[in-house]
């Protein structure tokens, strides 16, 4: 009994120390993000080169697997973008639904022979199609090989020096390509740029475009709005400042094709987006070549977030397995000074806070339950729990503030107040749920699917 009491006491102490360290890390990240975001807004508001005719042609690669509900709307929106020169390559990765037929019928596609240059090995390409009506649209129909494989097939077929990977369940704003390409038009060293991903649920969508941004109706969707704010406005902005971004969302990212081919394309793994970025960091840091992995916070992509607990659970388990897998594959970079900020700050942060955080927190909840059960509950435990909740709220609140000082997509005071309330509620219900899902990701990790994550799709409009 005394031993257990001691364990509870020392674990409480550990959690307190861990919370303090994480709070300090969060505060540093918040301050850096604050400064960087203000710079971003300044750059965007005063862009004098936007009127220039000079851009670089882009190949949009859209991997699709069983996307019959939304594929037409998505491809339509990709074909309507404001950009002088681009092609859209949709890769049907062996869908078992009507994705292929719908695309062929709607876009008036006909089969063509394709002399694609196989730079990266992929599953068998069954047929390529072109459209009678949209000259810049190509459809590749291939055997199922997973998202990474579909992206690689798209890269092989693409003709332009930059390719943009976009999820089929996304809508990108009309000027998003012009914005995301901007770092490529300035720095010679830019090899990848991530875009800002926002949640489309609840917003008004017409003809593949967001007409009116609205707060989603369901609480589960609102929680995710806050999560995306945190991830994109306080985390990525901050890491970008030090060229230490570890992830470019698979939903919307622009890449220099030659750099991606040089490292062998996307790896067939659970978190292919993060893994690729780590491989790019590894390669360029090792060779000593100058490079930039950037983030364009004004290039916006709207995604459909899961609106059911089952869908969200499988997504979060997949994401956490992706994180674990990527860190595991590149473990030699962690705390290795050879890899600069990425090895010494970004990766240790992701390892200690993002990967192990849920485990430490779950043990904390068990210890708390045990203390109550054994009547060893002390005020210290409840205070530490409150402290961790307030820390989470701080991170969310900062993200809401950053949204308000920068892009103001939810400008209505009612929406802002609702977001503040949702952030509090998140700490006492949603947080524990996602923590548990992320812990579940460790079980049967090796059996984790390297194929498509499936979320029930709904028509955008």
């Amino acid at each position, binding site marked *: 009994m005394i031993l257990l009491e001691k364990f509870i006491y020392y674990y409480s102490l550990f959690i307190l120390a861990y919370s303090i360290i994480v709070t300090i890390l969060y505060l540093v990240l918040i301050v850096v993000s604050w400064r960087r975001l203000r710079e971003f807004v300044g750059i965007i508001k005063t862009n004098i080169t936007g009127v220039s005719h000079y851009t670089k042609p882009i190949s949009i690669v859209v991997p699709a697997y069983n996307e019959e509900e939304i594929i037409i709307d998505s491809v339509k929106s990709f074909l309507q973008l404001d950009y002088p020169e681009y092609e859209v390559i949709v890769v049907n990765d062996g869908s078992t639904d009507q994705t292929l037929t719908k695309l062929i019928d709607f876009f008036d596609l006909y089969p063509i022979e394709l002399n694609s240059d196989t730079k990266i090995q992929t599953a068998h390409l069954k047929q390529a199609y072109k459209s009678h009506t949209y000259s810049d649209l190509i459809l590749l129909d291939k055997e199922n090989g997973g998202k990474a494989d579909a992206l690689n097939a798209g890269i092989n077929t693409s003709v332009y020096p930059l390719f943009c990977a976009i999820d089929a369940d996304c809508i990108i704003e009309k000027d998003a390509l012009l914005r995301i390409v901007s770092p490529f038009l300035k720095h010679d060293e830019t090899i990848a740029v991530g875009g800002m991903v926002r949640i489309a649920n609840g917003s008004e969508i017409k003809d593949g475009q967001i007409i009116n941004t609205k707060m989603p109706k369901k609480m589960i969707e609102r929680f995710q709005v806050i999560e995306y704010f945190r991830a994109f406005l306080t985390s990525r902005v901050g890491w970008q400042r030090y060229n230490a971004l570890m992830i470019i969302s698979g939903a919307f990212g622009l890449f220099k094709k030659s750099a991606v081919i040089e490292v062998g394309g996307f790896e067939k793994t659970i978190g292919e987006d993060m893994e690729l970025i780590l491989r790019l960091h590894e390669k360029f840091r090792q060779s000593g070549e100058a490079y930039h992995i950037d983030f364009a916070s004004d290039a916006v992509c709207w995604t459909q977030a899961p609106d059911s607990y089952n869908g969200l659970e499988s997504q979060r388990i997949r994401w956490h397995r992706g994180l674990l897998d990527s860190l595991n594959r590149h473990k030699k970079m962690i705390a290795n000074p050879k890899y600069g900020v990425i090895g010494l700050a970004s990766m240790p942060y992701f390892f200690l806070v993002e990967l192990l955080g849920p485990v430490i927190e779950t043990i904390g909840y068990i210890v708390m339950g045990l203390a109550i059960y054994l009547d060893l509950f002390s005020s210290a435990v409840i205070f530490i729990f409150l*402290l961790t909740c307030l820390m989470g709220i701080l991170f969310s609140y900062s993200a809401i503030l950053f949204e308000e000082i920068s892009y103001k997509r939810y400008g209505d005071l009612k929406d802002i*107040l609702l977001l503040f309330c949702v952030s509090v509620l998140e700490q006492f219900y949603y947080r524990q749920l996602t923590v548990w899902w992320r812990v579940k990701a460790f079980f049967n990790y090796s059996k984790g699917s390297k194929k498509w994550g499936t979320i029930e799709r709904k028509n955008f409009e």
Partner: protein
Amino acid sequence: MENLLVYVALAGIVGLILINLTIVFSTVAINQLDHYNDKVYQKTYRQIEPIIAASIDNPIQLVRKLELVKTRVEKKAVFDSLMNYVQDSTTSKNSVNVLEKLGFIDSLISEASKKLSLRHIQLFSQLRYNKVVPLLMKGTESENFEISYNSFYALSLFTMSQKELSIYVSALLKTSIIRDRKVDMLNHLHIDVKKLLYFLAEFTMDEQKVILLLVLKNRLKKQDVILANQLLPYLDGGKEIRIATIQVLTSSGNENYFSHLKELYEKESDWQVRAVLSKNLPDLHASEEQNLLIEMLNDENWWVRHNAITTLKKRYPDSKNNKFIELVNEDESLKNL
């Protein structure tokens, strides 16, 4: 010890509650203030804009009217409205004149001299007020990439003196700004061919020469033979230089260069150079081009053959000379083109 733990946790809780509350109040305040300021500004703008619209053709009268403007919001509305007229070529001169008389430009220059910001650069690039060239030149030396990059871009929209131009080109060619963007900026400047050739001789690095050659593209005229002849030695330069020189010479449309390019093709070992030549050759409008293009159909590289057949099909759609069609039919990889 237990007490210490409680105190530390409590202190943390109180601290975090205070920070969180501050964030909530700040966000709400920012939101409300923004809405209020925007409303006031819009109202003021709506009152001031018609006054400016009515007198923009008479700067003296307009200055007299606007001198009465006192508050910060009114001044901002006047400034923004006049800046809109700056964009219009018919009212640009008068607007700049009024902005100058009202002291806006002097105060902008004074602000920018202390610390040049992106906003200053944006406004200067719209005003095209030559007095700010030295400030922007200084901006190009900034350690902040965005300031330096935007200063270079803004300067490319100005008319500079010969001395300033030399400094500008020299500084621009040394930066890490992407090559095509440098070409874009230099293209804005409309530097004459003689001056470009002078720069070409001055700069020693291949990358710099390539940029200048790409700027020369489409500027050489058919009759600029003496000037274009100065480019012939570059056909013996590095790979990128050879490619750029081919592009410049073919864009001149002077068929006298055909023999030089043919000679280059025959001795060229790099397929990329040959591919550029097979693509750009028709721009020369040389009478002997067809034979060389047909010769290219036997090239060992696919891209050279591809470019040659595409060019032949485009240039000679009704050709009676079926020799190239026979050659294409023998080449399986070109049949589908």
